[in-house]
């Protein structure tokens, strides 16, 4: 139990990938294959996100420093455009505590993967529709029978 509980996320990742793989191999319905592909993909995304998660960490957005810590450099010239200067950035702590923010890198990799994933799902569905136009079926066995006729 003490071995499994801290690594439960990896087990779920493997289960999701197994389910998706099985569906892509074994299901005869083309739409089910597409859904299986999407589930396989979410398994991989879950893997990346969960290795980037940290205990007791916040979301990867730098919070403003508590009031009083924010300060402009003393003795500096008053900025010409007070609303948009580097002094404003001083309102943020410098640098932020690495252990208090989750890993942003794995998140951005997966963010783009999701959008590309829906685009490829669209391609898969378009191919399935094209097959349906020819054979009037999503079932692999029926399509094969149609072809050998």
């Amino acid at each position, binding site marked *: 139990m003490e071995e499994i509980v801290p690594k439960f996320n990896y087990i779920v990742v493997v289960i999701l990938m197994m*389910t998706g793989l099985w569906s892509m191999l074994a299901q005869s319905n083309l739409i089910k294959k597409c859904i299986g592909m999407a589930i396989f993909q979410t398994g991989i995304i879950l893997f990346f996100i969960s290795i980037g998660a940290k205990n007791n960490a916040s979301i990867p957005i730098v919070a403003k420093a508590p009031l009083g810590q924010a300060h402009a450099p003393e003795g500096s010239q008053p900025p010409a455009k007070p609303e948009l200067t580097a002094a404003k950035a001083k309102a943020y702590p410098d640098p932020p505590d690495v252990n208090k923010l989750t890993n942003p890198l794995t998140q951005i990799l997966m963010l783009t993967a999701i959008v590309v994933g*829906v685009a490829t799902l669209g391609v898969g569905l378009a191919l399935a529709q094209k097959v349906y136009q020819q054979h009037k079926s999503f079932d692999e066995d029926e399509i094969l029978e149609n072809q050998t006729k």
Partner: protein
Amino acid sequence: MAELPIWQYDTLFLIAVVLFGVTALTMQNLMSAAIVFGAYSFLMCLIWTAMGAVDVAFTEAAVGAGVSTVFIVATIYNTGASAKPRKPRVGFKLFAGAVAVATGAFLLSALPDFPAWGDPKSPVNSTVAPYYIENTIRDAHVPNIVTTVLADYRGFDTLLETAVVFIACIAIYSILRVDSAKSTVDEPDIIAAPPAYDPTDSLIIRQASRIMVPFMQIFALYVIAHGHYSPGGGFQGGVILGASVILLCISFDLKFVLRQWTEKKIMLLTALGVLIYAAVGVACIFMGGDYLNYNALDPVLPGDMAFARYYGILLVEVGVGVTVMFSMIGIYIILASNGRFNRGL
């Protein structure tokens, strides 16, 4: 037992996610499978929020639970909903199950080598990533680290990902698009036969979406522009903009939308987004910098030198938003109308 480094709710959600995934794959009716798959995506989005990946969760809520469910439903609407297999294929299913289990066993055999869930000292969290967390505010003055890494540090990656969405859109067009006048393929029965009742004729749905759509679009613009400070950005805002138009397609009909956005306009605008992104990079070269090094754009941008990257990120996010919005609309219309661009869901 020692202090458990996990989140109890996450464990419950993870179990629920597996159940939903298996249910979606075993259902006999494809329409139900699509809806359960949407619920699966929504649960995933909760899990990612709990793990601190708010941008990913936002994208998943808009893309996975929203748009991809609509894509699947549009495909099924054009075809058939029954997934009853002609042959049971028991032997083959067992064989495929054995292959899947073997793959899983190989993957699980690596389990002891992985760091514990949520370990801040794991290799992933302690090598490259701290650089981004420590330097984002100083380099780009953008509090949302994910946005900065997306559009600035890894700007090339995002440019090409946007190009992938555009190319996928073109691929779907070349697969499915048929000229209705010259087509020799029969229209599917469900499209050819008029439905028993006109599903677009619901006054409540029409008026509700008429009220909702402007607010959705304003929210989407806010998501794109405020992605610097909060979860959001070009991908999420673009998908929400696309979803608002898809809602119009569903609640009115395709013709209503196609009066505003013709097929040609949609394709041109999809390309325009990628071009905006690439042009920002080229502009950087002409201003004397490297490709996509926004500091070079400082003379033409408002504000301090320090904020050149801030505005550069905003410009490319607009490009991403335009491409994603119009590719989602285009993919939906072509899937829903079976390549004919005349009528659909």
